[in-house]
């Protein structure tokens, strides 16, 4: 079985080689897509087979003990491998048509392809790593290669700015992780994940390590208030990469948090409560910020923050379960979080790749300039709509199913713990319902402004290639399949969650709901809908006429509701919290002249937290900047002193 994985990984590397060596860029792209999707399929098969029959010895290559200690195949690693490969295949398929618009810059495209394949490879190896150093190496590789991938159009200033923010922020995250792993190493004396132990009895080290580990992983995952890099990086990345960034790379942060929970047992109560609070905060404000955006990719990036929040709520519930070792709660919380991680990877890929198709046709990301796409590409809009319904958490699609598990977790924990728990869990439930309402508002907004009504800027034709349809169709199919019949994946998740459950009382998913009942209802709904549609289409008495306009028939696209006006009612409630700014210039003359409206959505974390800290640090650094400009000898002295400081700290650390 391991040979399959080796084959898959080597095919991914070979894809990168082909992308460099094959002369005609068009051909190189085709070969790249073919080879890469074959390699990813092998890895997907590897993950699936191993997940269904979890290996007794969780080691990769048991024949080679040297290698096998670096990698391990436990349920969690394999589940994330499944997520990575199933989100990567559609992204690779869409690469072909998306990069067609950049083919005149062959070198940049080749560089992008190489870095993209290395991102894919390092992400897969990162989740399988069992050795902290190996983990960090692949973590760095993933981060750096994603950074290089961001630079496809590096001549644009906004891309330079956004990619720098990504680069700086993720390196701060890596810095935190270095401290985290070194502290873990000093505690356990081993570099292997399977040996790591972090208990509260170790005193201060526990808090420091937990803090740095959580901050490092939370920056990657995009929990608020560490999310500020996400909207910048996602909106400027080439869309196939932003799909992968949002669907998978931020999930490596979630993977890290899961691993952390494994190290820290027994878990104190405040961890679960803290994660719940920060996650609810991320979920509510992520979606609220999303509502204010006009840039489709920025909007989707804020939705990633919302979904990371929902995943975090599941993790928090699972932590509460682990603290008191209540098996059903562990299952519902962590299982719901894992399921939502998978689902988010699927529907977010669908939405991002869809936005890539729109970008390659209309060359804009501003949704206020779109509209009327449904008339030229109804099937494409239908697929995008499936993703939107799924991400809003509505039945009968997969987003609902994972939120359903998390809701069940709220009810379960309230009835188990009693006391004040029902009160807090009710607040969580209402919070999640509120998030659902905001997500509904947001996705009705983007679907209607982007696709429906009349065209705001004329587009001649809207082409969606066969490969695009294939990749979007696959993703939409998975959304539908796991919405109606989640039993397939819930079985797998049960075996993954068993890692966190103690011993024989491991739960199976069938105890929590009558799943077949739900499947039946959802299938019946779809059946009813399709029957009614067929019946309605077959009716003959219908015709077309102009839309109602109080007797005015000359409606133009400029009279349509815009995204800003649609969201104005909701955003008006929280203007000050959200840092929304709008400038209205209404002329005070009798006769109408030009008036202006401009709105801008800031970010409280960026404006209020990161920028002040950043400028403070910059101020301090510039105060010693004269060293580098005056005399070279001073500068060398300065560097020596720095090295001495670090070396001295290291020596003191070792001997004290």
């Amino acid at each position, binding site marked *: 079985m391991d040979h399959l994985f080796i084959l898959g990984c080597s095919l991914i590397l070979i894809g990168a080689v082909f992308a460099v060596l094959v002369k005609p860029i068009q051909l190189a792209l085709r070969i790249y897509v073919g080879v890469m999707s074959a390699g990813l399929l092998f890895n997907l098969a590897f993950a699936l087979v191993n997940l269904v029959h979890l290996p007794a010895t969780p080691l990769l290559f048991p024949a080679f003990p040297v290698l096998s200690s670096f990698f391990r195949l436990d349920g969690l690693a394999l589940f994330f491998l499944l997520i990575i490969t199933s989100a990567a295949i559609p992204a690779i398929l869409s690469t072909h048509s998306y990069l067609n618009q950049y083919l005149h810059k062959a070198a940049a495209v080749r560089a992008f392809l190489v870095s993209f394949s290395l991102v894919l490879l390092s992400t897969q190896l990162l989740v399988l790593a069992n050795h902290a150093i190996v983990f960090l190496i692949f973590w760095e590789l993933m981060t750096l290669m994603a950074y290089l991938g961001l630079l496809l159009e590096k001549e644009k200033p906004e891309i330079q700015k956004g990619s720098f923010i990504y680069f700086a922020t993720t390196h701060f995250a890596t810095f935190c992780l270095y401290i985290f792993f070194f502290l873990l190493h000093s505690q356990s004396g081993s570099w292997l994940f399977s040996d790591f132990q972090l208990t509260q009895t170790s005193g201060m080290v526990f808090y420091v390590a937990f803090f740095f580990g959580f901050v490092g992983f939370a920056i990657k995952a995009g929990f608020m208030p560490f999310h500020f890099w996400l909207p910048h990086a996602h909106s400027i990345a080439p869309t196939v990469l932003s799909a992968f960034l949002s669907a998978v790379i931020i999930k490596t942060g979630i993977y890290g948090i899961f691993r952390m929970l494994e190290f820290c047992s027994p878990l104190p109560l405040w961890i679960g409560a803290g994660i719940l609070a920060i996650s609810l905060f991320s979920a509510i404000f992520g979606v609220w910020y999303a509502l204010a955006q006009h840039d489709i990719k920025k909007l989707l990036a804020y939705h990633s923050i919302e979904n990371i929040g929902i995943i975090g709520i599941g993790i928090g519930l699972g932590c509460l379960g682990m603290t008191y070792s209540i098996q059903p709660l562990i299952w519902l919380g962590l299982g719901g979080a894992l399921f939502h991680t998978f689902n988010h990877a699927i529907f977010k890929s669908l939405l991002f790749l869809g936005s890539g198709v729109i970008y390659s046709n209309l060359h804009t990301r501003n949704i206020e300039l779109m509209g009327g796409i449904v008339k030229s590409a109804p099937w494409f809009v239908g697929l995008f709509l499936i993703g939107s319904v799924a991400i809003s958490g509505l039945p009968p699609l997969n987003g609902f199913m994972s939120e359903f598990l998390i809701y069940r977790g709220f009810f379960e924990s309230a009835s188990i713990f009693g006391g004040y728990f029902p009160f807090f869990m009710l607040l969580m439930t209402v919070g999640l319902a509120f998030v659902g309402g905001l997500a509904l508002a947001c996705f009705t907004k983007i679907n209607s402004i982007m696709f429906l009504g009349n065209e705001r800027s004329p587009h001649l034709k809207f082409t969606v290639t066969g490969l695009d349809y294939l990749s979007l169709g696959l993703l939409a199919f998975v959304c539908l399949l796991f919405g109606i019949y989640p039993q397939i994946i819930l079985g797998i998740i049960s075996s993954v969650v068993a890692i966190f459950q103690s011993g024989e009382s491991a739960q199976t998913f069938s105890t929590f709901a009558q799943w077949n009942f739900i499947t039946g209802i959802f299938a019946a709904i779809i059946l009813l809908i399709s029957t*009614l549609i067929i019946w309605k289409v077959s009716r003959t008495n219908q015709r077309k006429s102009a*839309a*109602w306009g109080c007797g005015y028939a000359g409606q133009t696209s400029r009279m349509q509701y815009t995204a800003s006006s649609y969201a104005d009612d909701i955003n008006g409630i929280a203007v000050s919290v959200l840092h929304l700014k709008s400038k209205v210039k209404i002329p005070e003359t009798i006769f109408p002249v030009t008036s202006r409206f401009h709105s801008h959505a800031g970010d409280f974390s960026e404006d209020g937290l990161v920028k002040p800290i950043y400028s403070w640090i910059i101020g301090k650094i510039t105060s010693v900047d004269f060293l580098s400009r005056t005399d070279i000898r001073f500068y060398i002295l300065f560097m020596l002193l720095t090295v001495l400081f670090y070396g001295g700290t290291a020596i003191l650390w070792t001997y004290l």
Partner: protein
Amino acid sequence: MDLSVSLQGLFPFVLILLVSPFLVGLINKQKAILTGRIGAPVWQPYYDLARLSRKETIYATSASFISRIAPVISFSAILFTLLILPIGYVRPLFSFNGDIIVFAYLLGLARFFQILGAMDIGSSFEGMGAAREATFAVFAEPIFFFTLGSLAFISGHTSIYDIYHSIQLDEPSALVFIIVSSISGFILLVTECSRMPIDDPNTHLELTMIHEVMILDNSGIDLFLYQYGSYIKIMVYAVFEASFFNPFSMANEWLGFSVFIVVIFLLTTVIAWVETMIARFKMKSIPQYLLFATAIGILNLLIYTFVR
């Protein structure tokens, strides 16, 4: 689940499908009487529906396939909420752990497609209605979880049928609970079914409406589905409200049945009375009104957490 139980659940479902237009007729009749008119007969909604089903369907030239599927999806989702909701003390056709969440989210699905169907026309009228619907829905969903959800947390059940059956009359706090829930349930009904003082179903000025303006360009069978769906929705919320008085039916089935009927009738009277006495609120103040309902919902839980 054996056949007789499912038949028992099917009977009220069919009954409600038949009765729900009558409920709206009842509201309209009472409203007419209160304003000193004779008004349309109580059967008028049935005539309307029959007329709509015969008429031809006109689609706006700017409309796409979304307008064609949206009424169907919205109607089907509402129909299935009715299958989950227990009617009186009868077990519904579908009752399972967690159906309270499915109930809330099916209504969300209905709303999602109704909004899309409205926005499909590309007219500002529909846009205005859709934006308002989306905004008020954000505040209406918490109310649902604060009323029925708080009861779920107290009782430890997650199936609506079990939740209603867990209300015990012998506890004094239950009476307080019934009153408080009825108030926030009423506000929820008013919001979700677009009645006064949130929305005016009778106004003919497009700029002031929510629900009516969203279906401005629908006609024929589409309008039939939307209207019938909204009638069913009112009935769903009326049943939702009346079921809080479930404890009476545990003492005596006939007492419970008559209480159920009386509560629903009283509800129509209250709606009619409110629509006669109160003008529609300013759009800006509606969120505050809904937050007020949310605040009473919190009261529910405080009562239960601290009184018991």
